[in-house]
């Protein structure tokens, strides 16, 4: 009988990361859209409310965070859909390696390619909204802790709705309530930093939520993918 020596998990994860990286690099529009959306939403608020510093400055952190939240959600809608359509998602289920680890590779690369540029852009938009410079650092740190949670929880929603043709509002309705803790602690961290108050309490909380999500979300994503593919 055939002696099958399956590749090691590390090798499989490495290959998945490389493939995801290649796929995203070769389709840059998918990376650019969320960033443009992020900038556009931040632009709307001064137009919608008022350009004066007195009004914009206190809401700056909230605006940047809400825009980041929505931009991440936008980038998640098509996370698994193309894989389902071309059949590579069911092949991912058919590998002998645990699906939750392989999915982490895919979601991790997605975070790297969409959230990091977003984090680097945030101070620019913050400055445009008169966010004090001493809060910029905390804003980037809070986003660094918060965006993985947004993407991991959003990926569960994306996996649940991958088999549906149009999901738009459904994904938002399912996932946004789960983003509320990140929004609350994220905005208040930046708010505190803007008033020269220590923000490490809020950042610690973001870190706690991040570690919980890092442990549980992959299980949720792989369970959701199995439900969606096995139809």
């Amino acid at each position: 009988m055939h002696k099958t020596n399956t590749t090691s998990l590390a090798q499989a994860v490495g290959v998945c990361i490389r493939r995801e990286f290649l796929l995203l690099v070769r389709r840059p529009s998918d990376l650019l859209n969320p960033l443009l959306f992020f900038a556009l939403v931040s632009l709307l608020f001064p137009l919608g409310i008022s350009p004066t510093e007195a009004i914009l400055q206190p809401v700056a952190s909230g605006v940047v965070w809400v825009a980041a939240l929505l931009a991440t959600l936008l980038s998640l809608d098509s996370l698994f859909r193309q894989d389902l359509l071309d059949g590579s998602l069911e092949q991912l289920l058919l590998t002998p390696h645990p699906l939750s680890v392989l999915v982490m590779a895919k979601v991790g690369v997605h975070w790297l390619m969409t959230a990091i540029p977003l984090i680097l852009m945030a101070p620019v938009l913050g400055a445009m909204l008169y966010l004090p410079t001493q809060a910029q650092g905390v804003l980037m740190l809070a986003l660094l802790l918060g965006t993985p949670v947004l993407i991991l929880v959003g990926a569960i929603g994306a996996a649940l709705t991958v088999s549906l043709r149009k999901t738009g509002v459904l994904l938002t309705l399912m996932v946004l309530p789960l983003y509320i803790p990140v929004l609350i602690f994220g905005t208040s961290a930046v708010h505190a930093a803007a008033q020269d108050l220590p923000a490490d309490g809020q950042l610690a909380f973001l870190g706690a939520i991040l570690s919980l999500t890092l442990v549980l979300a992959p299980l949720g994503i792989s369970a959701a993918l199995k439900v969606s593919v096995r139809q």
Partner: protein
Amino acid sequence: MKDTLLRWFHKWGSPKWFYDLSGRWMPWLAGLSLICLLVGSIWALAFAPMDYQQGNSFRIIYLHVPAAILAQSAYMLLAILGVITLVWRMKMTEILATACAPIGASMTFLALVTGSLWGVPTWGTWWIWDARLTSMLVLLFLYLGIMALQDAIRDPSSAARASAILAIVGVINIPIIKYSVEWWYTLHQPATFKLTEKPAMPMEMWLPLLMMLIGFYAFFAWSLLLRARHQVLIREQKTRWVTQLLDAKPATKSDPSESAKS
């Protein structure tokens, strides 16, 4: 003991058994909930004493608190049914979860509206960003998310399994959301009188509350069984026991594709 539990577990797993059993339980639940709700509300409206600070608007607590408790326990039930559905793939828990979500949602809505109506005389407006009301609003959106997902997926068992995962993710997040909203409320609102905090209640106040709570739970079970039986009929409409149940004459020649799914 273990195998009797398993056998009971599997018995409940079969829709036919559930249909017969629920048929026997429902009259009792109906009676209990009608009596408790009727007596409870009359007691609460007419006989319970007024609250010295809030006046008669306090009587809304007999509706708001049971609805809020029911809203959260229904979500817990959704998550537990979800775990059973995912682990043991039992058709009945899928059906019960599908039936449970709308009731939970309407109880959350009831708790939300009664909470804000209760606040009007004291706050002067019908909505303030009170910690508990905001958490209740978030819970309502969690319910609507689950119901929207159940509705979007065509195949009933995939829809049930998908919404089971969302319910489990939601139930893990509820304490986090509750704490963060609480923390956010105290951060922005100096500790004014927290309206929805139940002051220590004398006997003649919490007795009607207990009565109403029992009534609400009985109503919840009754409505759950009603909705679940409806789902059972939909999903089992091709089986022989449903055909006999409808005591219609089965087709003259035996239907070859007939499969007696228990």
